C-alpha cells in the first residue's frame, strides 16, 4: 500500500515537472469592508501577468474576508492542496503575521504586496520572504523627515491603539526632531473624531500627523475640515489614495502625504502602467495597484532567470530585483525589504477627480530600522 502511494506521488511529481507550470497563490481581501485594497492589488498583479504574455503561470486567487483565521486556512490550502511555489496578496499586517511565518517555513516564497510588519523585517525575517511594498514604518518615518524639512516644531500625533498604529507613531517619532504637543491613541474602527479634534484645537500644535487607515481616515478628514481648525495635516499615503480620495473630497485638498509611488513619477514603466491600468479597468490605479503590479513584475523577472524549484537560484534572482519598477529605482536591503525613495505628495484636483502630485522628496534611498536585527 505504502509503496503504491509513493509510486503515485512520484508520478504526480513527474507530471508537474513536465508541464513546468508555476503556481502562485494569492490570498487577499475581496469581500467586506476592506475589499477595495485587495481588488486593486489583484488587478495590478494580474495586469502585469497578462502583459508578460506567459501562460504557464497559474495564479490561484482566494478571498480572506479580512479574517486572520480564514487567511491561515487558505494558506494551508495553497500549500497543501494547490502546492503553490509562491504566495502573495495579503493586505493587512495582522493577517500577514498569521500567514507568512508558517508559509515561508514550509519552503514557499512569499512576496508581500502591501503589509510590512516590523517583526518580519527584524528578528523574524526569512530568506523566502520578500517585501515589495514597504516596511510598515517607512511612510511614517518619511512623514517625520518631511516635518523636519518644513520646520514643524510642535506636532500632534495620533493613531489607533493597535500594533500598526503604535508602530506608526514610533516611526514618525524616529525621524521627527521637534516637540510633541500631544500623542493620542484612538480606538480601532472609531468613526467620530470630535473629541480628538477638540484636543488638537486646544493643544496649540503647529502640525498634525495621523495614521488612520480606511474609513477612519475619511471620517477624520471630513470632520477636521469642518471643525475650522487650520493646523496643517500630514498623513501617510493610505488615507489619500485614489480609491479613498473621492470619498473624502474637498476636505483633503492640499494635504501633504508621504508615498513611495505616485502616478506622476516620471518613468516609462510607470506611465505605461497608469495608461494600461486605466484602459483595462476604467479607473485610475492606486498605490495598492502599483504595488501589485511591481510584485508581479519582480516575480516575472525572477522566473526569467530560475525556476522556483531551484530555490537558491530563484531566491538570488528575486534578491537582485532586476525589474523595472513603477517607482523608478528599487532594490532590496539585507532583510529583503525595499530600499527606495519616499516622496511627499499633495492632494490636488484634476478636473473632477481628486488625486496627488509629487511636491518633493521626503527620504532618499530609505531602508528600514529593523534590518540590523535580521539574521538571515
Amino acid at each position: 500500500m505504502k509503496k503504491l502511494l509513493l509510486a503515485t506521488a512520484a508520478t504526480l511529481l513527474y507530471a508537474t515537472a513536465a508541464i513546468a507550470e508555476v503556481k502562485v497563490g494569492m490570498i487577499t481581501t475581496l469581500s467586506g469592508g476592506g475589499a477595495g485594497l485587495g481588488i486593486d492589488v489583484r488587478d495590478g498583479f494580474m495586469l502585469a501577468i497578462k502583459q508578460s504574455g506567459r501562460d504557464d503561470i497559474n495564479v490561484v486567487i482566494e478571498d480572506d474576508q479580512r479574517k486572520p483565521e480564514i487567511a491561515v486556512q487558505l494558506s494551508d490550502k495553497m500549500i497543501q492542496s494547490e502546492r503553490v511555489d509562491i504566495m502573495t496578496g495579503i493586505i493587512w499586517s495582522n493577517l500577514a503575521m498569521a500567514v507568512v511565518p508558517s508559509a515561508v517555513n514550509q519552503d514557499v516564497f512569499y512576496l508581500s504586496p502591501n503589509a510590512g510588519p516590523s517583526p518580519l523585517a527584524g528578528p523574524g525575517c526569512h530568506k523566502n520572504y520578500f517585501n515589495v511594498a514597504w516596511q510598515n514604518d517607512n511612510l511614517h518615518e518619511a512623514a517625520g523627515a518631511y516635518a523636519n524639512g518644513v520646520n514643524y516644531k510642535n506636532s500632534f500625533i495620533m493613531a489607533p491603539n493597535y500594533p500598526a498604529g503604535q508602530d506608526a507613531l514610533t516611526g514618525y517619532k524616529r525621524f521627527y526632531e521637534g516637540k510633541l504637543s500631544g500623542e493620542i491613541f484612538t480606538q480601532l474602527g472609531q468613526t467620530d473624531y470630535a473629541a480628538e479634534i477638540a484636543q488638537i484645537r486646544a493643544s496649540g500644535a503647529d502640525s498634525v500627523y495621523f495614521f488612520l487607515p480606511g474609513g477612519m481616515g475619511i471620517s477624520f478628514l471630513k470632520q477636521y475640515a469642518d471643525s475650522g481648525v487650520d493646523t496643517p495635516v500630514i498623513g501617510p499615503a493610505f488615507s489619500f489614495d485614489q480609491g479613498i480620495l473621492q470619498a473624502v473630497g474637498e476636505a483633503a485638498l492640499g494635504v501633504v502625504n508621504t508615498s513611495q509611488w505616485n502616478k506622476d513619477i516620471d518613468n516609462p514603466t510607470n506611465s505605461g502602467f497608469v495608461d494600461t491600468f486605466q484602459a483595462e479597468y476604467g479607473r485610475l490605479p492606486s498605490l495598492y495597484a502599483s504595488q501589485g503590479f511591481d510584485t508581479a513584475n519582480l516575480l516575472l523577472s525572477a522566473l526569467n532567470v530560475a525556476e522556483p524549484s531551484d530555490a537558491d537560484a530563484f531566491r538570488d534572482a528575486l534578491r537582485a530585483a532586476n525589474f523595472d519598477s513603477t517607482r523608478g529605482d528599487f532594490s532590496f536591503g539585507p532583510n529583503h525589504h525595499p530600499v527606495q525613495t519616499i516622496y511627499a505628495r499633495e492632494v490636488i484636483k484634476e478636473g473632477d477627480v481628486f488625486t496627488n502630485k509629487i511636491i518633493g522628496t521626503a527620504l532618499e534611498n530609505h531602508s528600514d530600522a529593523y534590518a540590523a536585527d535580521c539574521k538571515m
Partner: protein
Amino acid sequence: MSTILIIEQILNGLQFGVMLFLMAAGLTLIFGVMGLINLAHGSLYMVGAFAAAAVAGATGSFLLGLIAAFVAAALAGAIVEMVIIRRLYKAAHLDQVLATFALILIFSEGTRWLFGSFPLFLNIPSALSGPVTLPGGIQYSLYRLTLIAIGLAVGLGLWVLIERTRIGVQIRAGKNDREMISALGVDIGKLYTLIFALGAALAGLAGALVGAIQSVQVGMGEPVLILAFVVIVIGGIGSIRGAFVGALLVGLTDTLGGVFLPELFKLFMDNGAAQKSGSALASMGIYVLMGVVLIWRPTGLFGARA
C-alpha cells in the same frame, strides 16, 4: 484641561448620543411593540447613508439626499417587513437572530454589488459647514450643533407621536396586548409595517446625517448596531425614554472616557503608557457601563420589572 475643552467634549458626547438615539429609538420600538430582535437595523442605517450619497451626488443637494435616505430606508424596511420579518414575530428570539443576521449579509454584499467596494462621497452642505462661536468663546461645528438639534427634535416628535396621537395609542396598546388591539379593529399587520418602516426611516436618517461627517462604506452599520443595542439594553428594552437616556449615557461615556481616562492615567504613568492603557480601558467603557447597569437592574433603567 480647560473648561472650554470640557464643554466642547460634553457637546461631542451629546451629539454622539442623539445620533445613537435615532438608531436606538427604532430598535427599541420594534422590540417593544413586535417583540423582534432586529440585527439588520444597522443595514438600514447603511442603506440611508448610501441613498443619501447617491442622490446628493447626482443632484448636488444635501437636503434631497436626506429625503432620499429617509424614503429609501423606510421602503427597504417596509419591504423587508412584509416579505420576511412578519413571519418571525411569533418565532423564538433565536430564529430572529439568525434571520436578521442573514439579512445583514444580504444587505452588505448587495450594497457592495450595487455601489462597489470603495467608500462613497457625502459631504456637509456648505450652509452648515465650518464652526460657529458659542457664548464663552467656544468654537463648535455648526453641523454638529444641527445634529444635536435634529436629534432632540426627533425625540420630541416621537414623544408627541406616541403620547398624543391615535397611532401612538395603537402603538402603546400593541405593546401590551396584541390580541386586544386587533379586536379593536386596527389592522395589526399594517400597524407593524408602519412601525417597522418608521424605525427603519429613523435609522436611515441617522445614517445619512452621520455619513456626511464619516465614511459611507459597506459595513458601517455594524458597529453602530452593537452600540444601539447597548443603548436600548441600558435604557430598558421597549422604552423610548430609556433609549434616550441610554443613548446620552453611552455617548457621553464613550466620548469623555476616551478623553479623560488617558489624562487620569497620566497621573501615575508615563505619557505613552497612559495613552495606551487609558484608551484600551476607554474602548471597553460602554460595555462596562452596560454590565454594571444590568447587574444592578437586570431589565435596564426603564425596563418593565420582571
